[in-house]
């Protein structure tokens, strides 16, 4: 097993200020960036704050920016870097910093609460839900989300414009709206909730300019833009901007839930 010394620059500080600190730290074969951060904690910076949990890319806790790119520290192998390069690790730059590599991601939980949850179909008891696999395939792709919030972090709508945080839910929660709107049993429409209209009017779908950064950073490989955001935009067009669809729904009076 080979070892070498890597050069790291880690952001240290809090909301009152901070800076990148240089470290030289030992690296072993097969290690990931989170291992190195832990070694720093153990040997050189005992008070370094870092949020982590599963070390398996499934809990979404160790999100950070490595060489300026939003990534999970536990899923970033040291072998992808040149041994001579300096690796920079910073907290997520879209959210308020708490300390060192830990940020306050409560924005995301606030946005999660703004999305009305699944509306159970009337007359069908829990346990009696029946759905065909091809009807839930689309929604199931979105259920792979581990809520690491890397997509929320990289989305320039809120990353570069703090003022948009009020109006814009972000890719993760627009994907949640898409998931529910595609759900074969969701009875939101019957209860008077139009998810397509509210995606545009309440969750800020129009702010998305589909530049695909959310898809690029997703550690689960979810096609957020192509399979959730653009289909949701098209559904919003059905509802708000396409007079032919509107006319068709008036003439045929087809029950939306059955199509």
């Amino acid at each position: 097993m080979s070892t070498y010394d890597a050069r790291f620059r880690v952001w240290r500080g809090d909301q009152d200020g901070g800076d990148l600190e240089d470290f030289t730290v030992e690296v072993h074969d097969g290690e990931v960036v989170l291992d190195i951060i832990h070694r720093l904690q153990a040997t050189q910076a005992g008070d370094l704050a870092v949020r982590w949990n599963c070390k398996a890319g499934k809990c979404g806790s160790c999100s950070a920016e490595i060489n300026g790119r939003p990534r999970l520290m536990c899923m970033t192998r040291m072998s992808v870097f040149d041994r001579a390069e300096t690796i920079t690790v910073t907290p997520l730059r879209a959210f308020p910093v708490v300390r060192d590599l830990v940020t306050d991601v409560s924005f995301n939980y606030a946005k999660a609460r703004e999305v009305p949850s699944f509306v159970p179909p009337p007359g069908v008891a829990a346990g009696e839900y029946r759905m065909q696999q091809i009807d839930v395939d689309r929604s199931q792709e979105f259920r792979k989300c581990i809520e690491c919030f890397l997509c929320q972090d990289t989305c320039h709508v809120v990353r570069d414009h703090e003022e948009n945080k009020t109006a814009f839910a972000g890719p993760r929660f627009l994907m949640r709206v898409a998931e529910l709107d595609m759900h074969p049993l969701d009875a939101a429409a019957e209860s008077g909730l139009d998810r397509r209209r509210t995606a545009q009017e309440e969750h800020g779908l129009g702010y998305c300019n589909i530049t695909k950064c959310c898809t690029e950073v997703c550690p689960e490989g979810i096609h957020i833009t192509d399979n959730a955001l653009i289909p949701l935009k098209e559904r919003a067009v059905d509802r708000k901007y396409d007079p032919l669809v509107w006319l068709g729904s008036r003439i045929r009076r087809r029950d939306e839930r059955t199509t």
Partner: protein
Amino acid sequence: MATGTEPHTDTGVRGATRAAIATRTLRTDRWWLAPAATAGGLLAFIVYSTWRAFSNSDYYAAPYVSPFYSPCLAENCVPMKGGPNWEIFGSWWGLSPALLILIFPLGFRLTCYYYRKAYYRGFWASPPACAVAEPHAKYTGETRFPLILQNMHRYFFYAALPVAGILTYDTVLAFRDENYAWGHMGLGTLVFLVNIVLIWAYTLSCHSCRHIIGGRLRHFSKHPVRYRLWGFVGKLNERHMLLAWTSLISVALADFYVYLLASGAFADPRFF
């Protein structure tokens, strides 16, 4: 006076509550290369197509008609035997007839979900690349005029279908020789064939097409045919970016090929 493009200092990644990092990005890769190449490619096409669209010459060399001038809707069009001459606009139209038809493919590509990404990144730096701070002080995305008009994309898709159909007709006409006898083929026929395959593949891989074909359904199980078609369009859609570029290049090459023939710079090699 604020122009809306001044570097911002108190919001975004340099906001008071964010980690205090002065640089707009810490990315170490050549993140600028992709948007620069995209902008360069699009700019080259814009310059070329503008020149060709306004030139109003060298767009027909029997049996080939440039895709920029098909269908030819004005009276000032060159007569094309059996070709797409439909004088809907009569004699009052004095400008290049290409301008009458190019508005549709232009609108289709301008509102295309892939090209939007390309020019928002390449020309408007919104954002220039992922996790690279954009230079604009304000951002409203596609919520307001004029960008809210991007929602018209499906109407341009509908318009792109007959245009692709007419270009298919032109490709069939390319199986003639210069004396309009059928059953012949030249290098130009091959150029037109490749172009029309790419045009159709790009048109059908459109996100609006995917939605119209089946994406808007809630129960695929009740619409097995549309589900199959949706899957087919979905597979094409995965290559939408590739098809956007290849069809853009092929349509320009097809036009340039006709220009070379019509201007006498080149003679069409005949296969049979």
